[in-house]
Structures are given as structure tokens and as C-alpha cells.
């Protein structure tokens, strides 16, 4: 289980990286933390001519705190977030999610951008950042474009990243102090990818009601206006009126035909809602 031969480049400038990716007649693969790419190389599932390591590019590790957003470079690691080496605008939500990814050795290297770009439906950031309402900024030869996370991940292991494009930064909205958040990850052992994810963000001050059912066969299912799950209610007690049947119907509509699969996904979401309701009481 050794990779096929490849060349390795570690450019220090964004432009140089983009130029490498634009090269004719060579196949390239971007390397961030290598936690997903490494196994793919070793299993020879990908055999690029050049591996372009982007972790030395300043834009990729930048951190900017704005009034209502935090901007994180794509190569910020799970451990950077977990350890609080980068600011937090989510009342600790991101730190908790980061701490539940894999185990420490993987978190030391794995990056937020690599995680989103791997687009594993079971990965944590894919669901958590969609629930937080985060956006990604993609950089190509001709400029940048901005997409909500749920539009970046378009399917299992599939993103809307164009050829020659890089995921440059992730923009995370600042939650208000009263925001209620819960994230429930169901997995069989510590460090495993999820089998079901439920996430809820209720931030009435910003008029945000979001819910995500993740770790499905495909991209996470995002309810951008989650009030439908609470009988349409938008008041403080709405979280206590979660309607599992509606969640179930959403899953049926999304094509999840297996009843037990739906059950664990609905339960994950229900528990997330219940947790969010509890935080509100404290």
C-alpha cells in the first residue's frame, strides 16, 4: 500500500499554487492536512503527477475576526479550533465540534477546508458549518466566488469546486449571545465518522432557525427555516414542539428508504433539539 510516484510542491504564494493547478498536461492534487488524501494516495485511488501542498500559503492560514463574521483560512486545523488558538464567534460550538472529530493525531493535521472539500457526508464540518450558516470563498484564476457551505458540498465526495480552484477561506457568522445550538453525532466508537448527525441553531435575534440532518448517503439535509419542524412556531417554546413526523417526511422525500436509518437520523435531530431547548433554560 504505497502511492504511485508523484512530485511534491509547496508553494508560498497563492498565485504560484493556482499556476500549478492550471498546468497543462499534468494532473494535480491539493494537499492540506493529508488525512484523507494520504490514504487515497496509498490505496492508489488517486495518482496525481504533482501534489501541491497549500499549507505554506499565508492566505490559507489567515484568521480575521470581523464584526459579524469570523474568517478562517482553509488550512486552519481542527486542533487550532479545539484548542482556541483561533477566535470563536459561535459561543463555543465550533470548539466542541472540533473536539469530536476523529482523535487527536488526526485533528493536529486535518483542516477545515480539507474536511469540507473531501465532502464525506459523515464528516463533522460538512454538517456543522452548514447548520451554522457558514460560507466558503473559492479562489480561481479569475477571482473569487462565495457559496453557502450547503451549496459547496453537492453530494457524497462531491463539491462544486471548479478545476483549478482552491477553497481559500470559510466565513462563519457570529452568533448572538442568546443563540441556542446543539450538535449530536452518533457514532459507534470514539474517532469514528458519524452514522447520523442532528444539528440545530436557533438564533431569534438574527432571525435564524436552522436545522441539519447529516451523515446521510449524500449531502446534508438543511432546513434553512427549521420552523416547519416545530409546527411553524417561532417563539421561545418552539423547541419543545419538535415534530418527528415532519423530520421523517423530509428524510423520505430525500430518498432515505430504510426505516431504521430514518429512525436514527430523526432521533439524532430530536436529541439535538432537546439539548438546544435545555441550554435555553440555563
Amino acid at each position: 500500500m504505497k502511492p504511485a510516484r508523484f512530485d511534491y510542491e509547496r508553494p508560498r504564494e497563492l498565485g504560484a499554487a493556482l499556476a500549478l493547478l492550471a498546468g497543462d498536461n499534468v494532473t494535480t492534487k491539493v494537499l492540506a492536512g493529508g488525512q484523507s488524501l494520504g490514504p487515497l494516495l496509498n490505496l492508489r485511488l488517486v495518482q496525481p503527477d504533482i501534489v501541491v501542498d497549500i499549507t505554506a500559503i499565508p492566505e490559507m492560514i489567515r484568521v480575521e475576526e470581523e464584526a459579524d463574521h469570523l474568517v478562517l483560512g482553509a488550512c486552519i486545523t481542527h486542533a487550532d479550533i479545539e484548542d482556541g488558538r483561533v477566535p470563536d464567534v459561535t459561543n463555543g460550538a465550533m470548539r466542541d465540534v472540533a473536539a469530536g472529530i476523529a482523535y487527536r493525531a488526526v485533528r493536529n493535521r486535518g483542516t477545515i477546508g480539507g474536511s469540507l472539500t473531501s465532502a464525506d457526508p459523515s464528516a463533522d464540518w460538512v454538517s456543522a458549518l452548514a447548520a451554522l450558516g457558514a460560507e466558503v470563498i473559492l479562489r480561481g484564476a479569475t477571482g473569487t466566488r462565495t457559496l453557502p457551505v450547503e451549496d459547496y458540498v453537492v453530494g457524497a465526495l462531491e463539491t462544486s469546486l471548479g478545476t483549478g480552484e482552491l477553497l481559500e477561506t470559510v466565513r462563519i457568522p457570529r452568533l448572538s449571545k442568546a443563540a441556542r445550538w446543539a450538535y449530536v453525532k452518533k457514532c459507534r466508537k470514539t474517532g469514528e465518522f458519524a452514522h447520523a448527525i442532528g444539528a440545530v441553531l436557533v438564533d431569534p435575534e438574527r432571525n435564524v432557525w436552522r436545522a441539519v440532518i447529516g451523515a446521510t448517503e449524500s449531502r446534508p439535509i438543511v432546513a434553512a427555516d427549521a420552523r416547519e419542524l416545530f409546527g411553524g412556531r417561532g417563539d421561545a417554546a418552539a423547541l419543545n414542539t419538535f415534530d418527528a413526523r415532519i423530520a421523517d417526511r423530509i428524510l423520505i422525500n430525500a430518498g432515505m428508504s430504510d426505516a431504521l436509518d430514518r429512525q436514527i437520523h430523526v432521533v439524532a435531530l430530536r436529541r439535538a433539539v432537546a439539548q438546544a431547548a435545555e441550554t435555553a433554560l440555563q
Partner: protein
Amino acid sequence: MVEQGIGARLTRKEDDRLMRGRGQYVADIRLAGMQDVAFLRSPIAHGRIRNVTVPPQYNDAVFTSADLVGVKPIRAVSSLPGFKASEQPVLATGKIRQVGELIAMCVAPTRAEAEDIAASLTLDIEELPAVHDMLAARAPDSPLVHEHWGDNVVLETFADIDIAKAFDAPIKVTRELRTARQAMCPMEGRAVVAAWDSRLEQLTVHTAAQMPHINRNGLSECLSLDQAAVRVISPDVGGGFGYKGILLPEEICLSWLTMKRGHPVRWIEDRREHLTASANCREHHYVITAYADRDGTLRGIDCEAHVDSGAYSSYPFSACLEAAQVVSILPGPYDFPAYRCRTFAVATNKCPILPYRGVARTGVCFAMELMLDAIAREVGMEPYEVRLKNLVRPEQMPFDNITKKHFDSGDYPQALRRAIGAFDLPAIRERQRRVEPDGRLIGFGLAVYCEQGSHGTAVYAGWGVPMIPGHEQATARLTPDGGLELRVGVHSHGQSLETTLAQVAHEILGVDVSKVRVVLGDTALTPYSTGTWGSRCAVMAGGAVASACREIAERAKQIGAKLLQADAASVTFRDGRVVSASGDVGIADIARTWYLRPQDLPGDVHRGGLEATVGYKPPVDSGTFSYAAHAALIAVDPEIGDVEILDYVIAEDGGKLINPMVVDGQIYGGYAQGIGTALYEEMPFDSAGQPLASTFADYLLPGPTEVPAPRLDHMETLAPYTLFGQKGIGEGGCIAPPAAITNAVNDALKGFGAELSVSPITPRRVLEAIAAAAANPAERAGAAA
């Protein structure tokens, strides 16, 4: 002075090296000119090779079966009547019988380049229908793994002891039970570095193996080399569990290659090869009926069992050991009067099955213990009460059970009582009547087993496999500076033998354990041994070391008596000194005299000096029987199917413990593997026989957070036939957890009428059992009848 002899909780001598990363494993070996090997393996489960096309530039670097002229296939034949022999080609000779079967060997300066070569080969292969399920393999229209057999049954065994007498029992419960196929997953995989020494005209095979002398037998046989022309070295080995007991075709390939090319070659198994290609374990299927009286007394057990043996018979244990053992050990620690059991070892298009730590016991314990709980539910008794009714009692010991197993000693009911006593069972039952605050259900489960270990000549002669243990030998040699060297043919790959054997020697000779060097894992340096398997080292190697040391003590007494000018018959040997009425002399002085000042000794001194090789076998070698009761308290989340172990108790009797801390370690390790079997580990296959878990992302092993610390309780009933009363206990920890945990889960789910009968207990299976019970409230899930 710290107590160092038998019974001392001594820290391990080998830890200084192993814990600092200074161990030397096969993959650490660098020989000048060494090249790497990668294999082209079969991508399909069953087929016929039409052609392998090698790009011309690689003609010198690729070898197929046509090149291996004179190399014999691996044959592991049992003399049991009806056994059908298979030949495992070293490189495939036409027919392919499993995914991962070796087709071509590719050699290059690095492994990556060797894999490039393997990837450049074109394989033209005709696909045949594959059979991957052992029950389907019994059907008359099944594809045949070995056509000339006429069916897929490697071996059928049968016993009937008065089963008809049980038929009128008022209680009759039948279940269909299954245990998943697993991989053994030692931390270090298999690894081979082969080198030809032209000066010695000797093949040296460095291999991660637990039975190096047996590998040597097999290599010499398949390569038609004199035994003396083969040296097998197993350096530090990172876990064996049975997986490192087999002779691999890769070992033969590399041996042939180094002789062909003259330079050393190496192959280091990767995880995908381990999981999918070399060998798996554990896959059993049972249809079993228990007959009982209304008070829980067992009247009889009637069973038909299948074991999926895979495509080939592995050397030396053969393809039938696991299945054939089921007949003799299914009754477990229980005494009942009627028994019928038929077993089938079945060939399928999967990699061979191997005896894995606990061997067939994990499966039979699962089967028997689930049945005892089924009876308990049927008669409305506590599961422990049913067990107490049926366990062999201490006053019956030694006890020949219904299959003529000779249980040497012990108090099985006491182990169970102690396990139960570690819990407040009435409080648990009370708690079960209330709903847990988090909506989970708690359950309490038990499993009891006894484990034959260190079984010897008679037992294995009965199986008639290529490896039959006889007298275990050890060499003890005092060095001129008063140190002691022990040479033993078993190996240590987690068992701490460098420490425990030194403790045995210390017990006899009084040499400080820091001055005892234990030499293992090299056929050129150690006496012949069948190696490390069957929980035999403490009894057999421990017995051999003690016997050799006693001989040394006798010799030392002679020399010491001369030095003390006393009569040899009048001196004693105590704490490392020869003592006479007038004085005493230490063993170091005795050694110095023998080696360095022979002029001080008279001519009639024993010519063997201070080195002795002595064989040992217990007077009754049908095996020691350690035993344990495991009790698990678990919580099940009935909405998502998760199982959490809340508390776990093991009450165990290993006889005299040479180093109780080492025994604790063995139990912890086995328990962790038992949790893997119970809750996580499973090698699934698709309908074409493709193994579906080829990395640890798909093959789940328990990690530290999944293995909560168990509470251990040691009992000590001395084994009557071993030197110090010690019993084999290396495997026991992994035998009972699948049964205890499954029983606990079923206890938790009894309110639903749901019952699990397939291991591992995955969340999916829990939810399915609950859903099935909800769908058919009248029909109890799990019942086959």
C-alpha cells in the same frame, strides 16, 4: 530484596526495550542489497487464470507459479477420518479460490516500485460463480471450491450420547446463532525478510511468527531443503493471537526468491492484505436445542454447527481444528446427561480460517451461554440460578465430562458466585423496573467457561495435524559471571515470557532476574518446540525451564560440595547457594570455578557442567482447565441501538499465577478482543465473495474508550498435574465477553421480547431485533424452530 520468584508482581523486563521503541521487529531489519516484494493478488473470489501478461521490461522482476519449479504447495492434513485435504499453491496455478490469493511476485528496490510492477501486469481471468456463505456451500448445487471433493465439506464430525433420553424434557428451546467472521489484527502484521547465506549454505527467514520451529518444518518441506539449511528467526513480534502461527505462502515465495536471486528480499504485510487476504477467524453458525427440566436442570444439548473454513487448510492447524473442537468443547463447564452434536467444517471462497485466541471456545461459549439464558427466560429463573444448577461442582473434581474432557480442578460455582457478588443484583433488577432518566435500558449478563490449555501429545495425536507437541524443552546455562541464560523454543509476543520464565528460574536457582537472559525466537539458538499457542507457555515452557534449572541446581550442588569439601549427598541448594554443615558457596563462585578455574575441580565432576537441556511434560497432559465467570452490566439505547458497558467483572482461576500482574494484563488484552467480537468486529462479504472491510475505517476495532476497565477477582485452585499448580490462562479473557455482553443486551431488551442471536451486537442488529419483535409480538425473535 524485592520478591522475584513465582507469585511476584514483578514489572516486565522487556518493557524497558519495548516501551522506549527499542524493540526490533522484522520491518526494522535492514540487510545490504535487500529488495522489496509486492504481490499481484486475485481481485476475485473464484476463477481460473487464463494468462498473466508481464510488460517486457519487468520480465526479470516478476515470478509466477511456472517459475517456482519444485516448490510444493502447502498441505495441512488431519488424520481425522473423512478429512478432505486441500493443496494451497504458493502462487496460484490456475484456479483461484479466494480474493487476495497470490498470483505473481514482483520484486524491486522499494515496495512502491514493486507495487508499480504489480499494477502493470494484466490479468486475464475467467470468473466462476463463488460461494461465500457456509450454509449455501452445503447446498447440492453450490459451486465447488475444490472440484475433486464432490462437495464443500472439509470434515464432518458427530457425537451422540444418549440424546434420545432428553426428548421428553418439559422445556425445549431452539435457537439459530451466528458469530461473524473476524480478522485477528495484531498490531504488527506478518513480515518476512529472507536471505541466503552462501557461506553457511543456509536460508535465514526472519519472520513475524509465534511458532518459529513449525515455520521451519513447513519451509523445509515445501522447499525440499534439509532442516539444517533453514534457520527461522522471529525477533520482537507485535502480537500473534494465532495469526502468526500459520505458514504463509509469502514466506515460501520469499525464501525461493532469495535463493534464486542471491540478495535478501522482504515483504511487509499491509493492513489490506491482513484484513482481506491472509486469514480470518471465528465464523460459526449453530442450530441448537437445549432440553431442560422446569427447575432449570439441563437434560441435554442437541446441536448442528458449521464453521466457515475458507478456501484452504492452513499449516499446521488445518482447516478442521476449529469445527472439530466444537463437538468436544460445546458442553462447556456444565454437567448434563445427553448430548448430540454434528459439525461441519465447510470450504468457501474466502481466505482460510485460523484458530484465534480462544479458538473455538469463543463461539461455543456464545452458543451455550445464550442457551442457558434462553432456558432461564423460559422457566422464569435468574440466569445465575440456572447455571448453578448445572455447573460441574467442586466435589466432582477431577471430572470427566460428557465428551471425556478431563477437568482437572476448580470450583466453577464459586467463580460464578463471586462474579455475582460483585454486583447488587436485586438493586439492578429493581432499577430495571424503573425507566432510566436517559431512556436507556440496562441489562445484566453472565457467561461462564472453562478453558483447556497446554493440552499435549495425546490430544493432538488425536487430531493428527502436522504439529503434535511432545516434551517441551528448555536449555539453562550458567555463564562464567554467574548469570543465567535460558533458551526456549516458544515465543513471546505480548506474553511477558522474558519476565515470567526468569521468575521461574529465580525460584529454583535464586539468580537475580536482572541476570537471567531469556533467548527466544530463533531456531538456531533454541530447542525444538511447537511454539506459542494453546495457553501453554506458563505450564510447558515454565515446566521445562524449572526442570532444566533443577538439573543445574543438582550439578551446582556437586561442584559446590567439592569446593566445600563436603559430601554431595549432604549439601542442600538454597537461595542460590550450596550449603553444607560447615559453610556455603554461591552459584556465581561455582560458575566461575567450572568455567575459569577447572583446575580446582577433581576429575569426576559431572561432565555436563552448568548447561542442561531438559524436557518436560506434565504426567497428565490432557490440559489444564482454567475457568472464569464474566458478568456485564450494560445500557442499551433502544432508539439508536448503542450499547455501553457500565461495569464488567471477571472472576477467574488460573491456578498458581507466576506473575499476577502479567496475568491481569493477559486478561485485559483478551477482554478487549472479546469486546471487539461482541460489539464491533465483522468482516462482511458481498455476494461475489468480496471482503468489504479493507481498512480500519470499515473494520472496527474497539479503542481505549470502548474498553472500560473490568474488575478482576482471582481465585487460586492449584492445577494437580503441573509443576507449580499453574494453569494456562493466556486466552481466557476473550472467550466470554461476547456471550456475557449479548446476554446482558438480551436481558435489557426482554421487555420488548427482542433477542439478539448474531454477533457482533451492532446498533443496526439491536434496532432490527426490536423492530422484529414489534412486528411479531407472538413469535419470539431468535428462535429457529
